[in-house]
């Protein structure tokens, strides 16, 4: 996606139009293009609902690793599929057909997802990729996380959160407008580290495996340590420290830990984490 394409979108428009970019702008086999259109038109319930509060929580699960896309979402209506997969193609009769898509269905084992799709609770976006895929295991993951073919810059979700907080608050990208800035919950990564996809410029993700760990245990040894500890970690970046140094980075992180603890007392982080 180039910068010219950056015009204001609603979430619904974004979902629709991003499919256009994904399928039409890139070199992908035509049946993938068609299935992208056919399958993934979002139902009204999946995008913004007018009049309904947008303060919902978006949960993104990333399953890292390999997936045989063509035997997961099977283009059974296309002869080419059976030609190139003569031995491992899934028989038409076994494919779980999608009522809203022509010639595309799911692997027979995906009955749960199939039910959800038929109830309008599942949407599938196909054909997301770029020409001449980079085959380095690591570069290709970075490209995936940044949605940039150069694999540089912020993560795709990080950009989204940045625009939520520093754009107009409607999920539109563009120049940050301080007048419209609003506090947003930091994105939370359940895991040891936040993935690159979540790394933004303005809002830094919080990551943890268990919210129980969000507390310094040193104060249990001696209550008199609590105040000096707070003073120590709440210094922020002190004047004698180069703001680009690792010391400054650690001081900022410590300050964030301290403020997270204060602004999310008693289980707020637990709730978010769950």
């Amino acid at each position, binding site marked *: 996606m180039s910068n010219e394409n950056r015009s204001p979108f609603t979430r619904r428009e974004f979902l629709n139009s991003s499919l256009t970019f994904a399928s039409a702008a890139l070199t992908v086999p035509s049946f993938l293009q068609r299935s992208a259109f056919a399958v993934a038109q979002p139902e009204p319930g999946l995008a913004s609902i007018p009049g309904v509060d947008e303060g919902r929580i978006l949960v993104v699960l990333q399953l890292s690793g390999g997936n045989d896309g063509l035997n997961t979402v099977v283009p059974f209506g296309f002869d080419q599929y059976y030609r190139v997969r003569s031995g491992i193609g899934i028989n038409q009769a076994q494919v779980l057909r999608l009522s809203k898509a022509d010639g595309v269905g799911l692997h027979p084992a995906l009955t749960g997802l199939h039910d959800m799709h038929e109830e309008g609770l599942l949407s599938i976006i196909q054909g997301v990729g770029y020409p001449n895929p980079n085959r380095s295991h690591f570069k290709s993951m970075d490209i995936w996380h940044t949605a940039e073919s150069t694999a540089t810059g912020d993560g795709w979700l990080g950009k989204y959160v940045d625009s939520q907080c520093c754009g107009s608050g409607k999920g539109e990208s563009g120049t940050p407008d301080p007048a419209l800035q609003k506090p947003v919950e930091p994105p939370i990564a359940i895991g040891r580290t936040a993935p690159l996809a979540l790394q933004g410029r303005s809002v830094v993700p919080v990551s943890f*495996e268990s919210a129980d760990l969000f507390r310094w245990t040193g104060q249990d040894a001696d209550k008199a340590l609590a105040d000096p500890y707070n003073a120590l970690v709440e210094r922020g970046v002190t004047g004698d420290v180069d703001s680009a140094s*690792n010391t400054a980075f650690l001081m900022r*992180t410590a300050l964030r830990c301290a403020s997270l603890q204060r602004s999310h007392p008693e289980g707020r982080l637990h709730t978010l984490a769950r």
Partner: protein
Amino acid sequence: MRGGIGSQGMRPNASRQTIPPSGASQPDAPRAPTLRKVRIDPSSPIDDADFTPAHARHLLWRAGFGGTPEQIHTLAAWGPERSVDYLLNIDAIPFDAVATDVFKSDIMRPATAEERMAARTAARAQDEESLARFRVMRQQQERADRLQIREVQEWWLARMVQTPRPLEEKMTLFWHGHFATSYRTIENSYHMFRQNQLFRANALGNFGTLMYGIIRDPAMLAYLDNNDSRKGRPNENLARELMELFSLGVGNYTEADIKEGARALTGYTFYDDEFEFRRDDHDNGKKSILGRTGNLDGDGFVTAILEKRACAKFMCRKLHRYFIADLPERERDMDPQAKEFINELATLMISRRYDIKPVLRRLLLSNRFYAPEVMAQQIKSPVQLVVGAVRSLRTPARSLSTLLDAMDLMGQSILFPPSVKGWDGGRTWINTSTMFVRQNVLTYLLTGRKPQGRDAGASIETYDPAFLVNELAERDPSVRSDTDAMLRAMARFVVGRDGDSLLAPVRAYVSGVVSEGGSATSPATLTGILLLLTASPEYQLC
């Protein structure tokens, strides 16, 4: 369990070696600091006269896992060359060799011919009872092996804590991160142990030897699927990572080199615990890799790599990142001095045919290594944090298992690197979650309180930091008479700095204790001081 080097051969008051004046420098004529700054050549060796306890502390942290005050003072008295040579010449430091039978080699042994036959017969006869019995046996083996990998992890962690040759373990850890292989994929604890021994045996040895060794290493062959790589259907994983991650870096080879390299590695596999070259599976055709053409096998492939100057530069950049400081990924983004230094190291590495020791010696003695923007600016890995705390503060190691759990939460589970790329390190170690674990694991070491707050008191071994004060006072007697001098000396030792912003909260704590009638030097107060210092953001650096 004590850090060894203080007690094994290194004595304080060791007579200072006579160091020949190096190059153009004039040790007898100290120059004005401003003048020095201009004249200093970052890649030139550090002057003997410039080597202070702060430099010795830095050397012990980077070329090892930190030292006690006594060790720091010993190295400071020795000067840079003797200190670096002491750390490098590991064979001169007596330490028990690793017995080869510490771990069981046959937990995951391959099935015998009889067993395979029995399984086939049962399958053919649809003998569900036998098949179920075989499955249970397999599960028992796997369970036993998972227990053993935990023992291997504990054994290595204990070795890092105890060794009088810290650089040997530090380099073993370097190679483990470089040729990263995870138990999670290969599920063979003995192969992980054997690979660890390969790294230890060549820790300060020769990079070429390691490259020829790694393409024969059962753990690596299984991890990158080379055991399935045959003529006609080569698997490219090992060939790709051999160049991308282990030796050349992106941009110094082509996709064609990968395809041809994969052919050269066909038939490289293992049986049970030993490497096997299967002639029938090997592609004997002509190959062209990195400009070298012929019927190349795995060794020919490695030789073609080692002949590239890009390989030496890649390895020197990696050593620079590990011991000195991060560098931009692309050479053209590096500042001219860094570029020149890497070039110089690479030339040395090639002239010494990929011996690691001369390169490390050059690196650890360079002014660049001791530059102010380098000292106390490396973010400690979880291993450095935990092992360094036990060794330098001489806390009890308490439960190795708990420490491994904490290291896992901090993002570094040894023998389980996240991918073949190893650990990214640097700032990626730090986030709001790991920060608390880092502070809390120090609480655990100092007090025995578990990182998670639950079932506290699991380790009741008490820790008395009085020895620290005693050792610090040996060098500076005012530590004993003046509380603030003590705090400053402790901060310099523990954190590597003694600025007022760091010390103010510590002073507030101590004066609070004293005003309530407590003592500034009681074990409880000294522990409190250490709890605060080790909870500071600056403590995460070395």
